[in-house]
């Protein structure tokens, strides 16, 4: 497994995906099927990243074409089930045929605009025109998206309809003649439906109507009698013919729909191929747009077992900060196999930086451009993070228990090219044992293939001889000159610097507590305790 759901959540990859918006249901499906590219797929990943970069370029250089394609994508409804059913020999309903016709129109639209793009795209992304299918669904070549069981589908249907129309016209003429006759005879006007309502008080008229051979009583109330034109013998024959014709038409229409479905089924695989291409293109477009928003670059896929990030930005944190009108300070980091230790002031962004490393690696391996000035990445077999805000309560484990359980699981894979991120290792237990365990874990991991990054406050771990990065923190700040309520995040320098030799870990906790308004009494006492300890 590349990473578990918790790592995915903790790194913020879910949130990054939440900002990736394909326009069509097919693109959305492709997004939900996104898988990380593993070492064996390095070439494929490189190609994918190239494509995303190309797409980002196209969004910039040919925005009007991209806009048209997106407008087409947005109209798409997910009707792949209808197409599948059609391939399997099923019969579609009229509404489904309409939907297929629309999809073909949309495909033609996308295809036309794709051809205008300055990009020689792979077959997998190319939406093809399907003239044969179009011919089937638009036999009149009207170019109109509506659908009807057109006369063109069947000569017999055409004949039946023409015959019925002629019979109906003849019948209509006869009826009109009869109505005119009745109107002349009785001196009244009939409704266009051939009905007339007569009040019973008009006894003479009622008598006449009742005696009229061309009228029949259709209903009676206490006051009125409704008479209706009675079809004479001359009309009986066309009426029966019309009924017969309607029935035959219905049978013929059913046959037409059956044949049409079967013919469509023959082109089903072409339609499905286009559906796949639309999905792939749509997702690529969404990736390109995300890269634009992130001002991202194409990560360089390296053979070496290293990760190097320069001016990397955590897009999730950046987005949150932007809401509060604050800027994210980009981070540089070079990681090699074995262990890298990060130390630094509280509130120095160690956790955010740790997550950044995992998130950017994860994004790159999912074929996304990364928000950094430059990144090179030796592909990872897996990513794991052990981090403070895990919901370990759900598992009934203490903080320490959850941490150790997770790390134990991942340590077994230390011989692989993984990325293991541990925030505040052994934070949940007493410092002495915590130190011992941490030191032992570092010793175990230091010569392994896996890249491990560990943040810690524990004194002495920096002496274990592994690579050591430190948050610049408040080093440059003159504490005597700042007021109590100043925003620490404004003063903090989040950048990481590699330290060599025995530099110790920074002691900013008391200063920061003071800045954050901890009572003077406690601060003074804490400072005294620190002095005593040093002696």
């Amino acid at each position: 497994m590349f990473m578990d759901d918790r790592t995915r959540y903790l790194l913020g990859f879910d949130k990054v995906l939440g900002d990736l918006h394909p326009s069509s249901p097919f693109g959305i499906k492709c997004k939900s099927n996104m898988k990380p590219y593993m070492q064996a797929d390095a070439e494929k990943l490189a190609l994918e990243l190239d494509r995303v970069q190309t797409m980002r370029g196209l969004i910039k250089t040919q925005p009007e074409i991209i806009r048209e394609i997106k407008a087409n994508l947005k109209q798409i409804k997910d009707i792949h089930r209808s197409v599948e059913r059609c391939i399997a020999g099923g019969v579609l309903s009229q509404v489904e045929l309409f939907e297929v016709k629309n999809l073909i129109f949309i495909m033609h639209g996308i295809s036309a605009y794709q051809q205008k793009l300055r990009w020689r795209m792979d077959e997998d992304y190319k939406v093809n025109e399907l003239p044969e299918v179009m011919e089937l669904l638009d036999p009149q070549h009207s170019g109109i998206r509506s659908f009807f069981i057109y006369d063109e589908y069947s000569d017999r249907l055409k004949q039946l309809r023409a015959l019925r129309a002629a019979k109906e016209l003849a019948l209509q003429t006869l009826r009109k003649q009869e109505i005119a006759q009745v109107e002349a005879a009785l001196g009244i006007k009939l409704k266009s439906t051939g009905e007339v309502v007569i009040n019973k008080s008009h006894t003479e008229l009622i008598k006449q109507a009742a005696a009229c051979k061309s009228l029949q009583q259709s209903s009676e109330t206490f006051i009125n009698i409704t008479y209706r034109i009675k079809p004479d013998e001359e009309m009986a024959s066309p009426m029966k013919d019309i009924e017969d014709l309607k029935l035959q038409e219905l049978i013929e229409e059913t046959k037409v729909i059956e044949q049409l479905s079967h013919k469509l089924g023959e082109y089903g695989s072409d339609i499905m191929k286009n559906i796949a291409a639309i999905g792939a293109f749509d997702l690529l477009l969404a990736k390109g747009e995300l890269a634009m928003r992130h001002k991202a670059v194409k990560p360089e896929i390296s053979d070496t077992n290293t990760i190097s990030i320069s001016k990397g930005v955590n897009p999730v944190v950046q987005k949150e900060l932007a809401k509060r009108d604050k800027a994210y300070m980009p981070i540089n980091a070079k990681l090699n196999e074995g262990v890298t230790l990060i130390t630094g002031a509280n509130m120095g962004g160690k956790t955010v930086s740790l997550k950044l490393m995992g998130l950017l690696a994860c994004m790159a391996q999912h074929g996304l451009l990364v928000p950094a000035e430059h990144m090179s990445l030796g592909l990872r077999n897996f990513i794991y993070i052990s981090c403070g805000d895990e919901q370990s309560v759900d598992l009934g484990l203490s903080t320490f228990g959850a941490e150790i359980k997770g790390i134990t699981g991942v340590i077994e894979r230390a011989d692989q090219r993984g990325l293991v991120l541990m925030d505040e290792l052994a934070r949940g237990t007493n410092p002495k044992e915590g130190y011992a365990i941490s030191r032992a874990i570092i010793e175990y991991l230091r010569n392994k293939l896996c890249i491990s990054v560990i943040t810690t406050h524990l004194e002495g771990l920096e002496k274990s001889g592994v690579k050591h990065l430190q948050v610049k923190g408040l080093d440059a700040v003159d504490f005597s000159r700042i007021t109590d309520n100043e925003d620490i995040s404004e003063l903090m320098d989040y950048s990481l610097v590699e330290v060599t030799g025995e530099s110790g870990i920074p002691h900013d906790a008391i200063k920061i507590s003071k800045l954050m308004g901890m009572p003077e009494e406690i601060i003074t006492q804490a400072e005294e305790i620190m002095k005593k300890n040093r002696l």
Partner: protein
Amino acid sequence: MSLINLIYPRYKTISVVGTSKNAGKTIAMNEIVAQAEAQGITLGLISTGRDGERRDVLTNTEKPPIFARKGTIIATVEDAVNSMTDAARAGVEILDVTSFNTPMGKVVLGKVVEDGYVEISGPGSSSTIKRVCNMMQQSGAELVIIDGSLDRRASAAPYVSECTLIAAGASLSRSMDTVLQRTKHIVSLYTMPKADQDILKAAEETIEKGKTIIIDENGCSKPIDTKTSLMSGDLIAQSISPDSRYVVLSGSATFDTLRDIVTGKREGLQIIVKDATRIFLNESELFMLSKLGMDLRVIENINVIAITVNPYSPEGYYFDPEVFLRRMRETIPEIPVFDIMQEGC
């Protein structure tokens, strides 16, 4: 003047509602359809929800379906289009399949390709009805007829259309007097005068926010701390001062609330509610409050352009058609009344 000339070309959408079941709504619709057809007007037909039942479920009386002419644009549902078994159905060309769902599938826009009976349907909410109406007009419908109803769910129909026809029928009550009075009441609620023009926008925004406020003659507004105006008349009444001019009520206007506000208030105080669906008053309550000097206004009212009468009830009784027609005209003199069941409409 004939019915169709009252409607077209002045209005492009009309809703048809009945005061009760079997009030003659479908007959009225068919009449408009026939008259429009005679003048060569391309129609759009849509219903607020489930329709096309050949029999009325409640009373088991025959409910005539709509006879549509070739070229008519209809809103219908997937199930109705896909049904291949009904020989009486009109052939329908599918123009569009909307994203609005009904229990019988998505709402489909169709064009009638040959004369015949059609099942019309439509979405339930007022905003979606409006959107489908627009789609039908874009497809060429010159006059859209909305088959609505006055029940609560679909009472939005009249607010979507430019004008409304009310079908009043004997089925409302065995007593003609009651039918006349109830019809008059319905009409007076739906044609309730609008609030003053200059206050409309502010009142509408207040109601959208779900607030209740009092506005004085200087235009200053005072919010009343009530979650709903139900049972809060007392609170509002206490906050009314001699210079109050408008009370904007977000919730329902019930008798108790209105009575509290009206009692002891100064002249010229307008009480404003959203529309008739928010007014819960019967005839005598409305009469009494009016006598007390209540000036109830709405933000949106309905343009009732005609009333049709159906003197027959499926329960087996009937009114004398001529008397019923004459008395309806006398009771509601301001609106043209037609008896389309009889001759000479």
